[in-house]
């Protein structure tokens, strides 16, 4: 009995429209080897619908469905029920978050060279200007002095004032930076 596409097939119990295919055709349709078709048949996952002489014929729709269910079952068992695409999406989201965090951290921690040069040079110039005024400021108080201790005391007080002024300049600079930042 040779039946092909689209013919009505009569079996003992049912009347149905199907496509009966050979073992070779089935293997091509499922993308597996003929040997694998045999193995699935031995395990009862694929069943022959009819015979053409000694050659089995398979209902393509039924076999495709059975094979698809078998593959889904195997995947389900292997992945523990987790959908691969969902898992990939989840991982990609986590990767993106990690990368963005690293980027934010990096942006926060770096200073552009031109910005640093500009700030430092301005600050340095102001500090040097203040420091270089020191000798002229203190010299008159030390003229004709002959007591080392008094000279040391005078110098120390003046130096304290100088360093206080430098610290204030530094703070003002920070405040200006903060205001600019706002």
């Amino acid at each position, binding site marked *: 009995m040779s039946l092909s596409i689209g013919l009505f097939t009569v079996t003992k119990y049912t009347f149905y429209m199907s496509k009966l295919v050979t073992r070779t055709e089935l293997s091509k349709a499922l993308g597996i080897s003929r040997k694998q078709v045999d193995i699935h048949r031995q395990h009862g996952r694929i069943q022959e619908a009819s015979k053409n002489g000694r050659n089995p014929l398979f209902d393509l729709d039924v076999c495709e469905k059975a094979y698809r269910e078998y593959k889904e079952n195997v995947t389900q068992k292997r992945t523990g029920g987790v959908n691969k695409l969902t898992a990939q999406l989840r991982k990609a989201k986590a990767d993106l978050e990690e990368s963005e965090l690293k980027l934010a951290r990096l942006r926060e921690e770096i200073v552009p060279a031109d910005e640093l040069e500009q700030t430092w040079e301005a600050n340095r110039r102001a500090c040097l200007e203040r420091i270089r005024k020191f000798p002229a400021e203190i010299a008159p108080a030390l003229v004709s002095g002959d007591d080392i201790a008094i000279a040391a005391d005078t*110098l120390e007080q003046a130096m304290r004032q100088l*360093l206080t002024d430098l610290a204030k300049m530094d703070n003002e600079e920070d405040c200006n930076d903060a205001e600019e930042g706002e």
Partner: protein
Amino acid sequence: MPKKASNTETAKAALEAIQAKIYHSRAARKELANQLIDLRAFRREDVERVLGQWIGTAKARLWAIPNSLPRLLVGHTTSDAIQAVLSEAIEEAAAELRPFEATAFKSGSIDYATIEPDESQEEG
């Protein structure tokens, strides 16, 4: 009537969009890392360390003046002579406030700035 996108297609599109964002993010990090390597940018902690050293040394030299200079200052009868002695000491301290030099701020490590090997493999 346009075909409605399946859940799988939607998920695939979302995955591609996220992967594109990851590439952008990694590219931005790589660009910043390159800036660190060729000294167009510096790590804030390196800048603070170097400037802290310079300022600290300058301060220490200034603070040393009241201890070291009085012996050299007493006995001078003119303001100019005192200014000359003080100026020399002041200039030594001022020299510690060095002009900007990019190599001084170069980072010893840029560990997290670079793209880790496993990430690059994933991209490939």
